[in-house]
């Protein structure tokens, strides 16, 4: 972790003004909650919520050959991306270990925006730069750009209120540049909550304007500013992994159950040989979602997982799910035990509590 003083996003003063509880996270001072994690979580599930994601890294890769080069650096297949589309993908080391999980957007024929984890930005940049070959260029624009995620079933109404009736929401995974109050912002139809929503990227100078407009126009919809606390419970209910908890350089996408985002039919990308081997022999451990069987203490990262008295793994994420009101989590368990419906036990302060391995996602929106 960085020893330098934590950085402030362009929305820091707004968070303080709104009474947020601020915590250091990945080298940034971030709001963990404004009023209540549970209330903020429910706002996203039921109406709409807005998150500051300015801490996330934004890297621009461009130049002749950028597409082929990036396709050899990332696991998913960029050739499937039309201009204006994005995909979830991984940056791996030679051993197939996860350096970062990210979304890559193709914003020009040979120009890409990579939205990466805050804590990994410097490492990702350094890694990519190490392999860079002219005339491709990479720029870390993180310090000059910000972002917000606006998520929840009322996104359509809020989008209309923000951008006017002549502009439509971009399709899922698409990114478009839109005019906004005399400036230009990029809007991507994506998110980390399981709800419909957008992520908006803009120059740092425009952050406050967009944030306050969304809060103002979202007021009749019941919008809430939401912190990292709700972001974490929302993503965990969907079984979206968190790098640093569920993913690390010691884990690969196959063991994490995310092989869908790895295209091994590509002739070459860093980590490919290692992943092929993992696929062939099977991962030693798999990341599985689980739910506690009884009301009791919620599971937490690093709690041990047992089966018939034998230790079979470790919890990487855990919480009390605000939507389900059950303790839920994700754990790496030995592959032999990683079966949906399998009974496991989570050790909490010396006592074992029963849990069941579940199917992804842990939370499913009821038809309505």
């Amino acid at each position, binding site marked *: 972790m960085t020893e330098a003083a934590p950085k402030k996003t362009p929305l820091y003063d707004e968070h303080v003004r709104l009474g947020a*509880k601020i915590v250091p996270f990945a080298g940034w001072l971030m709001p*963990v*909650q404004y009023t*209540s*994690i*549970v209330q903020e979580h429910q706002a996203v599930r039921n109406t709409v919520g807005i998150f500051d994601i300015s801490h996330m890294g934004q890297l621009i890769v461009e130049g002749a050959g950028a597409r082929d080069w990036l396709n050899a650096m990332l696991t998913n297949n960029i050739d499937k991306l039309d201009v204006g589309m994005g995909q979830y993908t991984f940056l791996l080391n030679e051993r197939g270990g996860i350096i970062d999980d990210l979304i890559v957007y193709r914003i020009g024929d040979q120009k890409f925006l990579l939205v990466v984890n805050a804590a990994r930005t410097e490492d990702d940049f350094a890694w990519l730069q190490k392999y860079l070959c002219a005339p491709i260029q990479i720029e870390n624009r993180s310090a000059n750009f910000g972002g917000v995620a606006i998520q929840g079933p009322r996104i359509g109404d809020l989008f209309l209120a923000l951008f006017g009736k002549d502009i439509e929401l971009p399709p899922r995974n698409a990114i478009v540049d839109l005019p906004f109050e005399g400036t230009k912002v990029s809007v991507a139809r994506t998110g980390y909550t399981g709800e419909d929503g957008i992520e908006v990227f803009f120059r740092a100078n425009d952050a406050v304007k967009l944030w306050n407009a969304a809060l103002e126009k979202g007021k009749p919809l019941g919008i809430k500013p939401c912190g990292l*606390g709700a972001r*974490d*419970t929302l993503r965990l209910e969907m079984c979206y992994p968190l790098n640093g908890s569920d993913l690390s350089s010691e884990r690969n996408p196959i063991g994490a159950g995310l092989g869908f985002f790895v295209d091994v039919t590509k002739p070459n990308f860093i980590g490919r040989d290692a992943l092929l081997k993992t696929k062939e022999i099977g991962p030693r451990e798999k990341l599985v979602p689980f739910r506690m069987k009884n009301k*009791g*203490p*919620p599971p*937490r990262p690093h709690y041990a997982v047992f089966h018939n008295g034998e230790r079979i793994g470790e919890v990487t994420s855990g*919480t*009390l799910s*605000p939507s389900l009101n059950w303790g839920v989590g994700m754990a790496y368990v030995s592959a032999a035990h990683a079966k949906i419906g399998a009974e496991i036990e989570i050790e909490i*302060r010396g006592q074992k509590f029963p849990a069941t391995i579940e199917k992804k996602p842990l939370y499913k929106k009821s038809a309505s």
Partner: protein
Amino acid sequence: MNVPDDLLYTESHEWIKREGENIRVGITDHAQSELTDVVYVELPKMDRQADAKEAIAVVESVKAASDIYAPVKGTVIEVNKALEADPGLINREPYGQGWIFVLKIDNADDLKQLKDAEAYRKQIG
């Protein structure tokens, strides 16, 4: 933050209400606000003997688990079972229905080690 004048406090954010030979213990308004939504409380075992500053209960929020300490040496003679069904009482009424346990204290002199409201207010700024 509400810091009632008639209570005593610990550095670890418990409040203490003297009731004759016993003390009633909970966590302060400041502590509940820092912890955020309390979702689970592990109560101490009845009749458990505890040393001062020994962790004897756990309060869990959505984010994390936090130990709750015996403010002074004593024996647990009552626990707040209502918290098992409604842990949010700690957020809503930290000094009332959100109390956690009652200790029969070994030595009333031990209470002199605790902070008064003014000292606690200074601690939390």
